[in-house]
């Protein structure tokens, strides 16, 4: 890197009190992987390139479409139908030829993910779906890479910095400390239906780029163990603190082998209701022999169940305890019937016997509600 470049191109940030040449040099040497070149990815890529990041990897297998243009501001009308990664790379190169750009015109999956991220210092999640977000989170934990997270919904955004080294062995919180399990269908609205105002990912993506720069340069306080929320409607910003969640490590794959065995695509519950039984059927089965009830909720969850005998195996534990389930009919239940559905699906797949696993529809809450009504 020519010194005159450093002085001219980056002069306005190098002269910043508290930034300086040391911070600029750290940026010039950094390798950052940006996953997703969409609404969040565009501002992240633009600001990281402009700021003089040494090397940026860009992952996206998508083509530019006309519905992207209102928010993905790296692309213009002439780019429709072209590869996002390729167009982004060309435009970013014009913006700052000093930044080395590496194109990955692929869909990131668990088979290529670990290899790709291991070559970078920092990973930036600019994807648009939970499967990818959980996979990237887990991969970053396994590979010990800091992860800059951001996501939008409607007029709101969230930003957080995960998995930063703290001392010799420890790392700060990750996405599973916030939401240990991937949401099932119906637990969040379908994003394609939700819509997004063009400028919102611009704001949130810019915040994400800022967190990357802060983390790399050591300037300021990155959002470690914190979740920032922004609401475009009322300009309200809030920062929430969180702690390590006991469930997080139970849900994370413990090594690369387990990572490859994870089912990120289908961790979301399929819509099929094939294991569900209603409260009436459940009551009828309760009294039958050879029927075992399993509560897959976490140990602290209420209400307590005193009405019938049951075993407690949390959904997180179940993966390693499937062999303990034994023969006979097994009915899983949880709070609202979502995790128990997942449990039944897991057990059915493990034993290859879908007929003997069931899930209480609506969970223990609606079962209790029904019985309370019958009492009055």
């Amino acid at each position, binding site marked *: 890197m020519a010194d005159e470049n450093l002085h001219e191109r980056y002069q306005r940030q190098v002269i910043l009190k508290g930034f300086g040449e040391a911070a600029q040099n750290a940026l010039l040497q950094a390798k950052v992987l940006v996953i997703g070149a969409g609404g969040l990815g565009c501002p992240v890529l633009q600001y990281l390139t402009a700021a003089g990041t040494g090397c940026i990897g860009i992952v996206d297998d998508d083509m530019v479409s006309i519905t992207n243009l209102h928010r993905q501001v790296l692309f213009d009308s002439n780019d429709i139908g072209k590869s996002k990664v390729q167009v982004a790379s060309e435009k970013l190169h014009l913006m700052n030829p000093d930044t080395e750009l590496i194109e990955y015109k692929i869909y990131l999956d668990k088979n290529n993910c670990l290899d790709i991220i291991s070559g970078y210092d920092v990973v930036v*999640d600019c994807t648009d779906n939970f499967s990818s977000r959980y996979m990237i989170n887990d991969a970053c934990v396994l590979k010990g890479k800091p992860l800059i997270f951001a996501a939008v919904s409607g007029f709101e955004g969230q930003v957080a910095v995960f998995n930063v080294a703290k001392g010799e062995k420890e790392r700060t919180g990750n996405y599973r400390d916030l939401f240990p399990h991937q949401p099932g269908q119906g637990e969040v609205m379908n994003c394609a239906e939700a819509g997004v105002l063009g400028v919102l990912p611009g704001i949130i993506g810019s915040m994400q780029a800022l967190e990357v720069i802060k983390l790399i340069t050591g300037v300021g306080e990155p959002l470690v163990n914190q979740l920032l929320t922004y609401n475009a*409607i009322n300009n309200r910003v809030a920062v929430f603190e969180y702690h390590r969640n006991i469930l997080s490590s139970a849900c994370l794959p413990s090594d690369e082998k387990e990572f490859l065995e994870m089912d990120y695509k289908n961790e979301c519950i399929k819509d099929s209701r094939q294991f569900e039984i209603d409260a009436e059927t459940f009551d009828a089965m309760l009294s039958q022999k050879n029927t075992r009830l399993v509560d897959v909720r976490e140990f602290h969850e209420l209400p307590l169940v005193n009405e019938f005998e049951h075993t407690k195996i949390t959904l997180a534990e179940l993966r390693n305890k499937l062999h303990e389930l034994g023969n006979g009919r097994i009915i899983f239940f949880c709070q609202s019937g979502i995790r128990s559905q997942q449990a039944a699906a897991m057990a059915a797949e493990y034993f290859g016997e879908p007929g003997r696993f069931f899930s209480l529809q609506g969970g223990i809450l609606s079962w209790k509600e029904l019985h309370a009504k019958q009492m009055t």
Partner: protein
Amino acid sequence: MTETSMNIMVFGQLEDITGAPAISINKVDNTELLLQALYVRYPALLQKKFLLAVDQKIITGKTEIGDKAEIALLPPFSGG
């Protein structure tokens, strides 16, 4: 807001369930009672994933709720 009620900030698409970004419910002493009250008033919340924060701290177990505590319900976002 009266002395016996508490304000709850609702984020993201949970607003579709509560009908407003801020709701008020009768004061309760801990987060367990709070969730029960919320589920009674908005049964659809049972099907949704969200975090509960008390005074800008995300909590996982039963937590006391002090007077004038700020409560927030935070769902996960996936859009990009």
